[in-house]
C-alpha cells in the first residue's frame, strides 16, 4: 500500500482511539483536514534575505511585507483573516501605493495573516511567508515543505537545514526542502552575467556533500527582478524602453552606480522620481538587464516579462516546486501527518494506542515512497552514480517522471496490462541481477534494490 493510504488509515484509527480526549481529538481532526489540503510551502531564511520579495514573485503580486506569518492561498476573491492569540477577525485586502496590503485593524500583536488571493500560481500550494523573527520549530510545525533562502552557505544556514531533518521520522522522509541561492542579481557585484554565474554556483551547491542530503534541489533566484517582471506596469516599460533607446555608451556612465542613475545631468528627460522608482523595483542590475534585453529585441511587455521571469530563476524555482513538492503532495502530507501522530502517541500514551504506535513505526520503516524520493534526489544530485542508460531507466521506474504505471514503464500511449507486464518483467529481471551482482558498488546495488522494489509494487498493480 502507498504511504498516504497507510497514513490515512492510521489517522482514522487514531481518531477512534482518542475520541474521548478533546485535545488529541481536535489535533488529529485538524490534521485530517490538513491532509487533504494543498501542500503548505514555507519561505524561510535569515532576516532580510528577501523572503517576502520571493513570496511575492511566486504569487505574482506585490504585497506589503508584514512582520508576521503570512499565508497565501488561492481564493475566489481577495480577502484576509487576521489571527491573534486564538481570536481572529476578517480583514480587507486593499491596494496602497502600488502594493497590496492587509488592513490588520487595531490589533498590535498578530500571529498570522491568512490571505485568500485569486492566482493561478497558488492553485497547487499554500505559500507561507515567514517573518524575520520566526522560530524554526514553528516553521516546521506549520509547513509541509520549505523553500530555504541563503546567500553563500554559512554555518547558520546549515544548522537550519539540518534541524529540518532532525527527527526520526523527518530523517526517513528527508524530502521537503528546496534551497534557493537568493539575490542572484547581486552575485558578481551586479555584473551583467550575474544570473548565469549564480546558476553555476547553485549547481555546485546542489552537488555539495553537505547540502545534497539536506535539499532536494538548489536553484538561484533573483526575487526582486522576478516580482518586478511579473507586476511590470506600462509606464515602467515605457521608461525602460526610452532608456534602452539611448546608446550603450551614452548610458554607461549613468548606470555605473545607483547614485549616478538617480543623479542630475541625466542624458534623458526622465523624472528623477521615475528613475528612483525603477531602481527600487528592479535594482540597478535589473535596470541594466532590462536595457540590454530591450535592445536585444524583447521590446514588448510580454516578451520582456517572459525573459525576466526565466532569467531571474523564478521559472526554474517554480518548476522545482512543482516537481519536488507539488507532485509529491501525498508523500509530504503523509510525512506531516506521521509527525503529528507521533506527537499524540508520545504526549498522551495509552494502552489502546499501542497498536497505533506499532503501525506508525512499521509505516515509517517500510515507506518505500520515501526511499524512492531519496533515490531520485541522490541520482539527480550525483551522489549515487549509475551508468547513464541505467540511470535514466531507474529514474523513470521509481517515478521521477510521473507515478502512474504507464509513466514509470515509459509508455507514451495506453498500453494494455499485458503489454505493460511483459516490459515490467523484463525490467524486473534486469534490476534483480543488478541488485545482487557482487561486482557492483554498494551504492549501485542499494539503488537497484529500490528499483526492484518499485517494480514489484507495479507488478501487484498489474495482476
Amino acid at each position: 500500500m502507498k504511504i498516504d493510504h497507510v497514513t490515512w488509515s492510521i489517522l482514522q484509527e487514531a481518531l477512534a482511539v482518542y475520541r474521548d480526549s478533546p485535545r488529541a481529538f481536535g489535533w488529529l481532526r485538524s490534521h485530517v483536514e490538513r491532509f487533504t489540503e494543498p501542500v503548505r510551502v514555507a519561505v524561510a531564511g535569515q532576516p532580510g534575505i528577501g523572503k517576502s520579495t520571493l513570496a511575492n514573485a511566486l504569487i505574482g503580486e506585490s504585497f506589503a511585507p508584514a512582520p508576521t506569518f503570512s499565508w497565501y492561498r488561492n481564493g475566489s476573491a481577495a480577502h484576509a483573516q487576521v489571527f491573534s492569540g486564538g481570536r481572529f477577525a476578517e480583514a480587507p485586502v486593499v491596494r496602497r501605493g502600488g502594493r497590496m496590503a492587509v488592513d490588520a485593524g487595531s490589533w498590535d500583536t498578530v500571529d498570522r495573516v491568512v490571505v485568500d488571493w485569486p492566482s493561478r500560481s497558488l492553485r497547487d500550494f499554500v505559500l507561507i511567508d515567514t517573518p524575520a523573527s520566526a522560530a524554526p520549530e514553528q516553521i516546521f510545525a506549520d509547513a509541509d515543505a520549505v523553500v530555504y533562502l541563503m546567500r553563500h552557505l554559512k554555518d547558520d544556514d546549515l544548522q537550519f537545514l539540518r534541524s529540518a531533518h532532525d527527527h526520526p521520522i523527518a530523517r526517513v522522509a528527508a524530502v521537503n526542502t528546496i534551497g534557493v541561492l537568493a539575490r542572484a542579481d547581486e552575485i558578481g557585484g551586479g555584473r551583467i552575467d550575474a544570473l548565469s554565474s549564480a546558476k553555476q554556483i547553485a549547481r555546485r551547491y546542489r552537488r555539495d556533500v553537505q547540502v545534497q542530503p539536506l535539499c532536494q534541489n538548489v536553484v538561484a533566484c533573483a526575487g526582486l527582478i522576478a516580482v518586478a517582471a511579473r507586476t511590470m506596469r506600462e509606464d515602467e516599460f515605457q521608461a525602460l524602453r526610452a532608456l534602452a533607446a539611448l546608446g550603450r555608451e551614452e548610458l554607461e556612465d549613468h548606470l555605473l552606480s545607483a547614485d549616478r542613475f538617480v543623479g542630475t545631468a541625466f542624458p534623458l528627460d526622465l523624472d528623477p522620481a521615475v528613475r528612483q522608482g525603477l531602481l527600487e523595483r528592479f535594482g540597478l542590475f535589473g535596470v541594466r538587464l532590462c536595457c540590454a534585453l530591450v535592445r536585444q529585441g524583447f521590446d514588448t511587455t510580454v516578451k520582456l516579462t517572459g525573459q525576466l521571469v526565466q532569467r531571474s530563476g523564478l521559472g526554474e524555482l517554480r518548476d522545482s516546486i512543482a516537481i519536488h513538492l507539488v507532485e509529491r503532495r501525498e508523500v509530504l502530507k503523509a510525512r506531516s501527518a506521521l509527525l503529528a501522530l507521533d506527537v499524540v502517541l508520545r504526549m498522551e500514551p495509552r494502552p489502546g494506542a499501542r497498536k497505533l504506535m506499532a503501525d506508525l513505526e512499521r509505516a515509517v520503516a517500510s515507506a518505500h515512497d520515501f526511499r524512492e524520493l531519496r533515490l531520485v534526489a541522490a541520482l539527480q544530485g550525483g551522489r549515487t552514480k549509475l551508468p547513464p542508460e541505467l540511470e535514466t531507466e531507474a529514474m523513470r521506474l521509481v517515478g521521477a517522471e510521473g507515478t502512474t504505471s504507464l509513466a514509470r514503464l515509459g509508455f507514451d500511449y495506453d498500453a494494455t496490462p499485458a503489454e505493460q507486464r511483459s516490459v515490467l518483467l523484463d525490467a524486473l529481471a534486469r534490476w534483480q541481477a543488478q541488485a545482487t551482482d557482487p561486482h557492483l558498488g554498494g551504492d549501485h546495488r542499494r539503488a537497484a534494490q529500490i528499483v526492484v522494489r518499485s517494480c514489484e509494487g507495479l507488478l501487484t498493480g498489474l495482476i
Partner: protein
Amino acid sequence: MAPPWLDVLDETIGACATHRRPDLEARLREKRAQQVDPKLRVLVIGESKQGKSQLVNALINAPVCAVGDDITTTVPTFVQHSETPSAALVRNASSRRSIMNAPTERVAVPIEQVTKQVSAIHSGELVRAEIGIPRALLTSGLVLIDTPGIGDTRSANTASTFATVLQADAVLMVSDATGELTSAELALLKKVMAACPNVTVVITKTDLCPQWRTVVERNRSHLARAGIPAKLLPVSATLRLRAAKTGDQVLNTESGFPDLLACLQRDIVASADLLARRAVSVVASSVISQLVTPLREELTTHDSSHTAATISTLQEAQRRVDELRRRSARWQNVLNDEMADLVSDVEYDLRDRTRKILREVDKTFDEADPAQGWEQFEQWLEDNLNDAATTNFAWLMERAEWVAEKVARNFPVYREDILPGSILPDDVLDPVGKLDKPKIEPFTITQKVFTGLRGSYGGVLMFGLVTSLAGMPLINVISLGAGALFGGKTIKDESDARLKRRQAAAKAAAQRHVDDFFIKFSKDCRDAGRYIQRSLRNHFASLAEEMQETLLESARSAKRAVQDDASQRDQRQREARRELDKLVTLYKRVQALGGGAAMELSA
C-alpha cells in the same frame, strides 16, 4: 624630514662608536633598520563574498588578489611595498602543521600569475601568498592582508584568520551594503576588537545598492547598540577601479576611497610613529646605561685616585669576567631543567582540568536529557574549556616568568633590563613583518614579557573551540514545534531506550570534543614552551656577551688610569666628565621620546 626619534637614535649610535662598543652599535643599527622600514599590518577580514579581495585590489589599484563570484580566497595574501613588482607563494615544507613554527618554503611566481596559482594549488599545503608592489601608499610600511571569508563552514580558515588578527596593527572589517550587519558579524567584530582595537568597518558595493545610506545609518546604530566603537566608511571598489582606469577624479571621490585612504593614513600610519618612538626609547635607554657604566667607573677611580684602589678595580673587573664565563654553564642548566619541568607540569595540569570537565559531563548526562538545553550545554562546555585553557595558559606564563627570574638570579650580574622585553621574536606567525609592537597602553612587566605569546595563544584557543559539537542530532526542533502546538508546552520524550541512546551520544560527542581540544591545545603549549626556552637562551646569551664587553671596557679604562701620568689623568677625567654629561643629556632626550616620565640616570 627625518622623524625626531631617528636623530636621537643616530646620535646614540654615534655614541656607541665613540665609546668603542661595536656590539651595542650593531644592536642599534638592527633596530634602526627595523624602525626605518616598519611593517604595519592591516588585516582585511569579513564574511565570505563581501568584497574583501576587491577592496585590497582597489586600494592599490592592481589585481593582485583573486576575486570571484563563488568562494575564492582560501589563504591570506600579504601585499607590501617593493621597488619592483614581485610575488611568491609560501607553502608548508612538511605536512606537520603548527601555528607556532612550521617550516615553510617560499617559491617566487610571476606576479600576473599569482591569483591563478593561488586558486590552483590546493589549500592544505599553501600557507599564504606574498605580493610586493611599488605603491606610495605602502611605502610607510603598510602591509595589507587579504584573508579567507569567515563563517563559510570551513573552520580551519576561520581559525587561521583569527590567529592573524592578533598580530594586526589595524583591522578593516568588510561587510557589503546589500544587507545590514548581521548578529554573527557583530559578534565577530566584538571578538576582533578584543584582540586589536583599531578596527574600521568598511561597507562595500555602495554602487550597487540604492539604499546604501540607510544601511550605513542602521549599521551605525547596530554598532552603537552593541557598544562597538568602530569607525564606519562606505566605499565602492568597482567605481574606484574604473576611476583608476579612466583617470576620472570625480568618480574616484564618489568611490569613497579617498576617505578610506585618509583614515588609514591618520589612524594607522600616524600611530606607527608613536610606536616607533617608544620602541626606540626602550633600546636606546638600555644602550646608554651600558655606555655610562665604564665612564662612571673611571670617574670613581679617579676620584679615589689611589693606585691601589684602581688596581683592585682592575682585578675585580677581571674576576667578574671570569666569573661570568664560569657561571654561563650554570644558568644554561637551570634554564633547561626548569623548562622541562614546566612543560610536563603544565600538561599534567591541563589533563587534570579536562578530566574534571568530562566527569561533570558524565554526571550531567546520567540524569539529564540532552535534547533539552543542548545549547546551554554547548555554552557551558565552551565556557569551561575556555576557563581551563585560560587558567592553564596563565599558569604557563607565570611559571615561564618565574623561570626567567630564576635564570636571572643565576646570572652573575644584575642589570635593569636583565629580564627580556619580549620572549618572542617580533613575529611569531610569519617572517614578513618585523615591527616590534609595544601596545599603546602601559603595562606591567608580566604583561609585557608575554604579550606576544598570549597573542598567538588567543588564536590557538579560538581555534580549539571552533571545532564545535555540530552534527549532534539532539535538539529536536521538530518535536518541540509540534509539541508546542499540540499541548502548549514542550514535549515529554519517548521511551527510556531512546533517552539512553541520546545520553550516550551526548557523552561521546563531548568526549571527542574535549579530546580534540586537549590534543590541539597541549601541543600548542609544548610549542610555546620550546619557544620560550629558545628565546630566553638567546636573550641571556647575548646579554652575557654584552656584559663581558662592558666589563672588559671598564677593565681597559681602569688599566689606562693606572698607566697614565697625573696630567693625562686630569685630561682624561675632564673628558670622561664631558662625555658623561653628554650621555646624560642624550638619555633625557631618549626618555622624552617614550613620552614617559624621565627615569633618573644618576650622573
